[in-house]
């Protein structure tokens, strides 16, 4: 009996998992020693970017098209959710020589 119930629960879980669309991914982008890595990365609308600043300096992730402007104090992280598709060039306002590109697809 118990085994049968467990079995039916697991079937239900599998069916439930199939019914839910693919979960949005979380992508890590790191700033370390004044370098953004990866310098170029693809993501999908709905994905979360986890910005990680490993430096003892404050940085920003500022999109040229205005889609995001995240301030990252030293040794902190922050997240943004990608809301629309496009190729986004972004940089650090404090150190504009830190540049990278995010390709957001549907």
């Amino acid at each position, binding site marked *: 009996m118990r085994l049968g119930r467990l079995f039916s629960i697991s079937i239900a879980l599998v069916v439930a998992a199939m019914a839910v669309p693919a979960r949005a991914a979380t992508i890590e982008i790191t700033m370390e*020693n*004044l*370098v953004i890595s990866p310098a170029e990365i693809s993501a999908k609308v709905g994905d979360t970017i986890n910005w990680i600043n490993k430096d*003892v*300096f*404050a940085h920003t992730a500022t999109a040229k098209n205005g889609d995001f402007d995240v301030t990252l104090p*030293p040794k902190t992280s922050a997240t943004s959710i990608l809301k629309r598709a496009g190729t986004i060039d972004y940089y*650090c*306002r*404090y*150190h*504009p*020589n*830190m540049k990278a590109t995010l390709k957001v697809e549907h």
Partner: protein
Amino acid sequence: MFSRWSAAIAAAIFLSSSALQGAGAADKPTDPQIAHIAYTAGVIDINAAKQAQKKAKSKDVKAFAEDMLRDHEAVNKQALALVKKLNVTPEDNDTSKALSRQASEKLVELGKLNGAAFEKAYVANEVAYHKAVNSALEAQLIPSANNAELKSLLQTGLKIFQGHQQHAEHVAAGLK
């Protein structure tokens, strides 16, 4: 020898980077001297930023000065931690002295200006100063550094100051 390279660096920082070309490898500053020069260069920009925070009115210039203060303090904090770790005592030298003297003169000169004239002169000097420090770092200080950690800190410093130079150029463009 010492006065030759220090004169070359001082000239590079305040006149033009081409003056560095003449300095030979034999005139290398030592690590304790390099540490002192780098730290002094940071203190100079911190003092300039403090003056700008008092005198500037423009939001962009004030924000820029705050960025300079924060970054240069962070770099110098790392520099102090490093010399402590390496048990090195930074050594005062002719380049550091020349830098400090010229910076004091600049503070007096800028102190006489107000409003937009001050802001323009401060930002223009920030562009020129970072450019000169970057040239000195690239051409002289980084190649001369013996200790790998000191070299690495100078390289990080170079990337930050190149960023500051670009940032200052953006601010300068916005003031015109």
